[in-house]
């Protein structure tokens, strides 16, 4: 009986080994979901994320007879001590034309603060047709105590924006980046704050 059981034990060990490997692989797969998710959102434009680096300027024809209503929404994250608003609440733009909008932020504390604005576009499908040439959201912004800054966004709404979209909402949320330390610009800022 012993002898007939012996090969079964070996089978058990090798099967258990393969199953452990499966578990470890699935742990890795959980982390792999992060780049997959990012790539998926970038390709499809889902999630309302706009480009995070400046888009190159291309001369496109301005569609003078099509008007898009652009609305601005500004939010300050719960723990961020800022005043933050856009200069105008909305503007009318023509697809293909280049425009500039000004956002104004003021540091309400008497400390140096680093802010990061995170953009989002609604409807989501408009996100990849909203190309920013320059944006204060590309890098984090340093504010002296009580400093107020005017920050520009220059953008083009692509002419291939789907026909049924007549309103685009551009939203910015302002975060205090003191707890984010993985980006060198911010790291500099954090040490500044602690000093």
């Amino acid at each position: 009986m012993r002898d007939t059981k012996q090969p079964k034990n070996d089978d058990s060990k090798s099967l258990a080994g393969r199953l452990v490997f499966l578990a470890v692989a699935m742990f890795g797969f959980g982390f792999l979901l992060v780049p997959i998710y990012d790539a998926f959102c970038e390709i499809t434009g889902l999630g309302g994320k706009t480009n995070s680096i400046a888009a190159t300027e291309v001369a496109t024809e301005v569609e003078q007879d099509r008007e898009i209503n652009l609305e601005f929404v500004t939010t300050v994250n719960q723990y961020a001590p800022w005043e933050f608003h856009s200069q105008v609440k909305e503007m009318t733009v023509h697809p293909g034309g280049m425009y500039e909008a000004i956002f104004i932020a003021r540091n309400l504390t008497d400390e140096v603060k680093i802010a990061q604005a995170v953009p989002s576009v609604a409807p989501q499908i408009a996100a990849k047709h909203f190309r920013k040439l320059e944006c204060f959201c590309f890098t984090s912004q340093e504010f002296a105590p009580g400093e107020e800054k005017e920050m520009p966004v220059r953008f083009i709404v692509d002419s291939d924006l789907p026909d049924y979209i007549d309103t685009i909402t551009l939203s910015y949320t302002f975060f205090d980046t003191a707890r984010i330390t993985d980006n060198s610009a911010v790291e500099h800022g954090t040490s500044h704050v602690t000093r």
Partner: protein
Amino acid sequence: MSATVADTHAEHEHHGPVAGWRRWLYATNHKDIGTMYLILSLIMFFVGGVMALIIRTELFSPGLQFVNPAFFNQMTTMHALIMVFGAVMPAFVGLANWMVPLMIGAPDMALPRMNNWSFWILPVAFAMLASTLFMPGGAPASGWTMYPPLVLQTGDAFPFLIFSVHLLGISSIMGAINIIVTIVNMRAPDMSLLKMPMFVWTWLITAYLLLAVMPVLAGAVTMLLTDQFFGTSFFLAAGGGDPVMFQHIFWFFGHPEVYIMILPAFGVVSEIIPTFSRKPLFGHDSMVYAASSIAFLSFIVWAHHMFTTGMPLTGQLFFMFATMLIAVPTGVKVFNWTATMWRGAMSFETPMLFALAFLFLFTIGGFSGLMLAIVPADIQYHDSYFVVAHFHYVLVPGSVFAVMAAVYYWMPKWTGHYYDERMGKLHFWLSTIFVNVTFFPMHFLGLAGMPRRIPDYSTQFADFNSIASIGAIGFGLSQLLFAYNVIQCVRKKGSTATDAVWDQPQGLEWTVPSPAPYHTFETPPTSSVKTTFS
């Protein structure tokens, strides 16, 4: 000479359990470990139940009466974590430990020492989780789904929450590996895969689900941990992360998890209904394929938990239809159980009563699940008491009733004595009435717009909440009957059970004596397939 060797060998092999605490702490016997799992599960069921009663007491009437909102949120979170990971999952693992070797004619689990580990990690994990109740900032209060950024506001409890989830995951993974290896390698010689009993089949599928998704949960909570303490930004928007991504990763685990909690219940019911209908299970093979289809579909429906996060129409349609597709294999199972009873010589002992209540009430939970799958409806129902009603219908009269049915069904085999049948029936009727009094009004509350996870509510919700609270207290007290009945049975107070226990039940577990000896099937059974039904 060979005879003497065989004798000493036999003496050595047939020893009983060691005396005292060593039997339990160093346990490698599948029956001992199964017993410990079931006891842990019963204790956790009452701990989670007390938390549920705190919730329902607060919700008895509008306004804040007994607890503050922060503590209320801790109770909802801890109730869910304890019931999911402490009551339902260990109960099914305990049943698997006890019954899988008996049902396939194996002497023990394939990896007994790992089995010991996977059990003993659990009390440590729950001690750690329970200790968070006494920490500054209190226990986790962000819901069992642990969504960031809210969960990152948890106080000192946060790392303890993460590590206890890690431990629970490791325990489940080791348990799953053990069950797969046992089923694959240790079946009786003539038991082919398709001849396996349904409980064994559903556990094999469940174990693969566990292996596939528990590591993903471990990864998700690890990301929460590094976001909080090591400067990563997986889920922090300020650093380029995305909190919605957590929901995707969590529900990639979370949806298969709900089938992890119900597939073994399907297996239990598939054992009980044939016995008390005195007919073989109708459509055994189609049951196997249905369970496998459910398991496969569970991986491609996760985003139906997230319809309100914003999703393109094509995504909503895909997840809606994929979710509704699950109703097909589930319907196969429900109709097969019904067909098993058709023209059967039915009798209604306590396990059968629980199995029948499972069939009715789980189906109600399944139907409300279909309603939730409809995207435009879900946007209304999302985060309302309708959702609470739905998942409690599939988990309480679903999973929990199946566990109770299984305990009543197999307990005479475990202890050698019958439980008190009259008390069992009383327990059944009280539980079934009160579970409906508790959870049915929640459908109406949800449709009327009452949000979940809120300690206070508008006065128009008062009547149904009072009814639900009365039901909850009744349900909680009824379970004391269950505990008493189990304890009396373990203390051998009932009449002596025969080896077959029931009237000609099918399966190898009924061929061993009652109570099942400490070691069984040391030589594989000669014929694994009994055909006593004619």
